[in-house]
């Protein structure tokens, strides 16, 4: 019996998702035993031509992490989409844009200007910018072109499943692989994580006061965080209530508030707006001035609530030039 062929690919990402695969520890051996990894540029030497040589649909599953911005990434995900039966958006960047997606608050031109001109350590008197093509005696060299915007994977190609997280927790990866091997994947389009908030599995859950009310939001560096009590109840901007679980509430367990990397629950349309609603609602302030003072602990609401999901948000917008 031939083992199913599996591919891994990365787009605009930090490499954490690759690490997450390795974080399966010994379990990875079972994976390797069960499947044939035929493409994994980060770990093994494969070339694009190897993929092009595959028959359409030859890959049983392809895990793609990272957001999509360059022409190369577009080409590769297009290619892998053709070759793979199932595409799984792996990690927050692929699922909803992730941290790279925050670049959508600025423009391509501004990014390039910053990198190639404005940073203090840059010396570029001729204002040399990378060119898509350049002629050299040996022929034409090309570089990938940067798109105006960062996209989630699902905004570039059709995606079958989402494995959320920054990076996806080992347990969710193992469960997903198990489901693939057992043929028990849910309906296409599903997110392969429990549809219930992080509080559900948070060790601090029982310390929540009956009425969750906060008079002043605070940032983690402003307070000594009580290691046992509910973080939201302490006035910290914890997005646990808004965020899908499956991580074992790892951040709160490490005494840091949840930042929402596993993304929205199925019944929520827009993670940021919903998270904003939940957070602002627990503010116990009546008058305008008290409200503003209480919310001063959220200096960057867009960055806070769309930290991992700006490209996939309802208001996918850029600041005006």
């Amino acid at each position, binding site marked *: 019996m031939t083992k199913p062929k599996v591919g891994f690919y990365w787009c605009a990402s930090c490499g954490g998702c690759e690490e997450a695969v390795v974080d399966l520890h010994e379990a990875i051996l079972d994976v390797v035993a069960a499947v044939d990894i035929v493409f994994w540029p980060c770990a093994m030497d494969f070339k694009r031509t190897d993929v092009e040589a595959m028959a359409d649909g030859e890959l049983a599953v392809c895990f793609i992490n990272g957001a999509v911005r360059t*022409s190369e990434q*577009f080409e590769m995900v297009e290619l892998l989409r053709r070759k793979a039966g199932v595409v799984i958006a792996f990690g927050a960047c692929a699922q909803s844009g992730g941290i790279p997606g925050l670049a959508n608050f600025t423009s391509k031109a501004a990014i390039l200007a910053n990198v190639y001109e404005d940073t203090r350590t840059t010396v570029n008197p001729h204002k040399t910018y990378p060119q898509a093509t350049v002629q050299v005696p040996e022929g034409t060299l090309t570089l990938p072109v940067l798109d105006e915007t960062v996209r989630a994977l699902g905004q570039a190609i059709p995606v079958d499943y989402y494995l959320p997280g920054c990076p996806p927790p080992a347990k969710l990866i193992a469960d997903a692989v198990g489901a693939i091997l057992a043929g028990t994947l849910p309906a296409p389009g599903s997110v392969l994580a429990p549809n219930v908030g992080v509080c559900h599995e948070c060790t601090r859950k029982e310390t929540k006061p009956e009425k969750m009310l906060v008079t002043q939001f605070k940032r983690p560096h402003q307070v000594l965080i009580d290691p046992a009590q509910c973080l939201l109840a302490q006035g910290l901007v914890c997005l646990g209530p808004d965020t899908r679980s499956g991580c074992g509430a790892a951040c709160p367990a490490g005494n840091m508030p949840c930042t929402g990397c596993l993304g929205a629950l199925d019944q929520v349309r827009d993670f940021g707006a919903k998270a904003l609603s939940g957070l602002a609602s627990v503010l116990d302030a009546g008058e305008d001035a008290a409200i503003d003072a209480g919310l001063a602990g959220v200096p960057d609401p867009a960055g806070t609530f769309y930290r991992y999901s700006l490209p996939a948000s309802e208001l996918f917008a850029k600041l005006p030039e």
Partner: protein
Amino acid sequence: MSDTPAFEPRIVAFFCNWCTYTAADLAGTARLTYAPNVRVVRIMCSGRLDPQFVVTALRQGADGVLIGGCHPGDCHYQEGNYKMLRRFHLLKRMLKQFGIDDQRVRLEWISASEGDKVQRVINEMVAQVRDLGPLALVGKPTPHPDASEKHAAA
């Protein structure tokens, strides 16, 4: 009306059942004519206003959103309007980061007897948003030049 088809804004309004929706009914009963650009979605209390409604409306083509609730202290459910106000403050701050002009999302306390205020606020807001022009969410995903059309913006 000029012969060039001028931009006409579309505004979604969320009015609470007890005060502002009733005031809008009163404006009707009193035959107070106002700009037809606003479409009202009735909610029982402004406290029901989920910021998702605002962003969805803007995403779906609204150029502005008007929220109408009972005056502070008048809420039929004691203080739903105050609870909404907290969200509204943070939402306004966030929308600014998205480059959305302050005048596009407006909150007004309008009591059941203030039919004339419905008229005034709507006319005012329509004029303001008309001046601002269409809401262009500039970052809306557009097909990448190198990617095929069919996979663009799922």
